[in-house]
């Protein structure tokens, strides 16, 4: 049978026809410029989400001073730290025993700090009488006096003179790296959230506009509704790729012009190249999950007002999911993080954060497979709902003033169109 006489378009080809129309219409539409300006909004949201961010930072970015001395000196240093902290109040960083050395045993503080991981920001070696502070330059400046005071108390609790602290600077430390990675995690989550919400809203508006234009019945008569659903979903994904390329290029150009490079920032756990790859993958998963929900919601609505009413719960729920995933950063390895990784809608956000903070790649393989399975479930359920309901709420349905409650209640019935 020739291409011309074959009975109908395949699902993929029909979806391609729909996607091509939507893609070009949006790309060359007047509103595309507003879409490109969309990333400005994260700045506002970041300010609003500052509270949570601060909590996350305070909960996670702990910077410890390690002590690596002979055993009795370690104990003396820790006791002195407690005493100094008591007298000074807040602002004295925690001090932990990193190593209790045998007499004559050496300790490579620089190597320990540069190996990364953990919460060590500095290491004090030597003796209380002649302490050596190893840390990044900034930490050395901030803590040199404080370490001298603690060492003085450790050497002689009644002293009023403090030993000179020798210093050696390192490029980075575990604490600096952890703090930087958490910032990367938070930034990645916020960017991911904004992109997904922006695109899911656009796909919803696009569908409602189509219903308003009465085109949906023409589409329904010509191609399977699943193809319409898929076409719209993937057209917006294509648009987002264009947007991301534009934003990334612009951002890269601005940063390069300002002399800033990625090496100025903490290296994500998986490294920058893999982080970008994973970010793109989680963006696609997150968008497909939320876009499916929004398209299904759109199939119930006739007007922009109804869309706003119906999509608000979905939007609010997604904001809660986002905050949930943000809080997961504070509980790495705990039940909050594992719950956020397992729950399909928060999983992309939680995993982006994990890509920033943890080196292991295998959890991402598992997470992507898990999310892909849920994407399939969401698309299938969304397309099914879309197919059953999109012709239900035509203009005649609107004239009959069907209440939204009734429409939602009808989701679970198997009828699918208005009488004509």
């Amino acid at each position, binding site marked *: 049978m020739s291409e011309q006489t074959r009975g109908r378009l395949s699902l993929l080809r029909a979806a391609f026809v729909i996607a091509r129309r939507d893609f070009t*219409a949006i790309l060359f539409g007047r509103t595309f410029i507003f879409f490109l300006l969309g990333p400005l909004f994260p700045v506002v949201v970041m300010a609003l989400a500052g509270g949570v961010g601060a909590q996350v930072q305070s909960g996670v970015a702990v910077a410890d001073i390690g002590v690596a001395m002979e055993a009795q000196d370690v104990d003396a240093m820790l006791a002195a730290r407690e005493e100094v902290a008591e007298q000074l109040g807040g602002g004295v960083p925690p001090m932990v025993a990193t190593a209790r050395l045998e007499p004559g045993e050496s300790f490579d503080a620089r190597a320990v700090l540069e190996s990364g991981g953990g919460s060590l920001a500095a290491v004090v070696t030597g003796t209380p009488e002649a302490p050596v502070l190893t840390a990044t330059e900034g930490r050395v400046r901030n803590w040199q006096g404080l370490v001298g005071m603690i060492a003085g108390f450790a050497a002689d609790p009644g002293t009023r003179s403090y030993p000179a602290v020798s210093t050696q600077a390192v490029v980075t430390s575990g604490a600096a790296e952890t703090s930087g990675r958490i910032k990367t995690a938070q930034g990645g989550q916020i960017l991911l959230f904004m992109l997904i919400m922006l695109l899911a809203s656009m796909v919803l508006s696009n569908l409602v506009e189509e219903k308003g234009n009465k085109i949906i019945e023409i589409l329904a008569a010509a191609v399977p509704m699943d193809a319409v659903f898929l076409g719209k979903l993937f057209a917006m994904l294509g648009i987002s790729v264009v947007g991301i390329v534009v934003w990334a290029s612009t951002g890269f150009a601005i940063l390069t012009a300002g002399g800033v490079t990625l090496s100025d920032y903490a290296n994500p756990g998986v490294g920058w190249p893999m982080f970008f790859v994973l970010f793109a993958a989680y963006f696609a998963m997150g968008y497909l999950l939320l876009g499916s929900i929004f398209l299904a919601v759109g199939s119930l609505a006739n007007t922009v007002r109804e869309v706003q009413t119906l999509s608000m719960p979905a939007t609010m729920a997604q904001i809660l999911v986002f905050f949930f995933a943000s809080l997961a950063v504070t509980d790495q390895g705990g039940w909050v993080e594992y719950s956020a990784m397992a729950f399909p809608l928060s999983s992309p956000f939680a995993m982006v954060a994990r890509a920033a903070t943890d080196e292991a790649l295998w959890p991402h393989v598992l997470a992507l497979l898990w999310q892909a399975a849920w994407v399939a479930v969401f698309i299938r359920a969304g397309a099914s709902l879309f197919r059953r309901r999109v012709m239900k709420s035509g203009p005649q349905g609107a004239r009959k003033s069907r209440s939204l409650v009734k429409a939602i209640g009808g989701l679970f019935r198997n009828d699918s*169109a208005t*009488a004509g």
Partner: protein
Amino acid sequence: MDMATGEFTPATGTTPLAIEARGLIKRFDGTTAVDGVDISVPQGAIYGVLGPNGAGKTTTLRMLLGIIEPDAGYRRVLGAENPQDVARRIGYLPEERGLYPTMKAYEAIAFMGALRGVPLAEGRRRGKELLEEHGLAHAIDRQIRQLSKGMAQTVQLLGTLVHDPALVVFDEPFSGLDAINQGKLELLIRGLADKGTTVIFSTHVIAHAERLCEQIAIIAGGKVPYAGSVEEARDRIPAQVRLETRNPDGAWRAALPEGTRRVGQFWYFPLPESGVEPLLKALIEGDAGILSLSIERAGLHDAFVAIAGEAAARAMVTQAAGEAT
């Protein structure tokens, strides 16, 4: 079924059927919109679906097209039980006209063709050709929102035909068109049928069906009380005799059959089964003074009233009058 063409041939006839539906039922929220519809549309016919608003016409057409699934019943369209399997051979113009407002006219036609499998480049070429053929060459590059309502409707109509379908389904195609464009559309429908295309359209204006259709289905209250030829529908009503006499009264009046009514100077009564000759003889012998006598065949409207009922007919007339104003 003819395996070569995919057309369905009924067991009792020789004309292949483009559409066959039996016992289609559709319910919405407990209300039965279509209640056991039977339709047989011969291949190449112009077939009308008549009924007032809310009778179930659109729902029936949507079920025939596979836009919605029937709750019960059976349908076969161009040989396929699932109409979506032959979607590329069907053209559909819904009652609610719709086009993308920012699309150019020829692009809109090409897009509708692409939905039915016409490659985009070919659709664009055909779109331009069709617009030129229908006197809209000046509108080829205009956006839909820049066109008048009539022009936009024509663009959508051409989009329905761009893929050269074997079956065209129009839902209330004359709705919203002025008299001139209604005439043009009638010509276009006849042209399609002349090429062998099967055309099925719904309408609440009986005159269109009477002028165009060989076959009709009358839908009222979700049921089809009649489906068959227009001629057969008209033949269901006996022909009416209209008599005008010089003498208003006399012995001749005894010759008039039961049920005769007088309107002005005319007498109306059904044509007697014995024919008009015995009656003529009685009138002449009774000195009626015949001024005129004519036998008038019932129109489709009369047939519709007789089949669907007075209420349905009144609803149709009211609806058509409302649109005209």
